[in-house]
């Protein structure tokens, strides 16, 4: 594994599991996206699986969404929420929609539009992960660490473990000033102490 923070690129020579193949196949359909949350930790070795992969895309108008929907379907995926394209677009504007391989609800992609400042930060500062086959765009590690700590405030220890995994793995390469800033902004100073 090699992390070039200047180029915002990580080279990862991992063997693929079924979850990686699923994510790579889906992301290859998209033009612009960023993967956030649990799968980022799993990609870098966290010893757990997940039922869903959180993915953010820039704002789509209905025309663009319809074209994307067609590409997604042609690639063998389906929307789990509805088969109605207009309804799906409305649901996406409100919250999120899920896609999986046809007739296989697990795992699935939780597909969301970029809305808040955390989403925007993750997309703007995304990292490219070069894999043996293809590449993926993920949220910056500093944001992942801080955001997972914020999620852990809800009492989920799994999120603290995800955060610790990334912190320890990338400790030497992290932008410490940026991480400290994000920890402060998300008000997770207490949780940050737990993983150090």
């Amino acid at each position, binding site marked *: 594994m090699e992390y070039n923070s200047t180029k915002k690129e990580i080279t990862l*020579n991992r*063997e693929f*599991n079924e*979850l990686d193949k699923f994510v790579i196949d889906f992301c290859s359909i998209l033009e612009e996206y960023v993967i956030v949350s649990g799968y980022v930790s799993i990609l870098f*070795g966290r010893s757990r699986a997940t039922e869903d992969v959180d993915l953010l895309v820039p704002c789509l108008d209905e025309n663009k969404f319809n074209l994307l929907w067609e590409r997604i379907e042609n690639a063998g995926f389906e929307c789990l929420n509805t088969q109605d394209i207009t309804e799906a677009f409305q649901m996406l504007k409100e919250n999120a929609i899920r896609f999986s391989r046809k007739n296989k609800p*697990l795992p699935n992609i939780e597909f969301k539009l970029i809305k808040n400042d955390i989403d925007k930060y993750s997309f703007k500062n995304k990292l490219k992960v070069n894999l043996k086959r293809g590449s993926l765009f993920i949220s910056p590690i500093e944001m992942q660490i801080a955001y997972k700590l914020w999620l852990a405030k809800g009492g989920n*220890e799994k999120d*603290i473990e995800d955060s*610790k995994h990334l912190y*320890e793995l990338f400790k030497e390469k992290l932008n410490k000033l940026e991480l400290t800033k994000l920890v402060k902004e998300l008000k997770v100073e207490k949780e940050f102490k737990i993983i150090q």
Partner: protein
Amino acid sequence: MKINFEELESEREKNFEERLKFVSFWVDYIKVHKDEEWSEQQNIIVNSQMN
């Protein structure tokens, strides 16, 4: 059934601490092994939950 919640909470905390230690242990393993090696092991966990 009498449940000792203090004892349960203490067990939960100890278990969490132990899991955090394992996170560190596993990260150390990843750092000193090739991507192909650690991922092969991780894939056993991930694939077992997928199939």
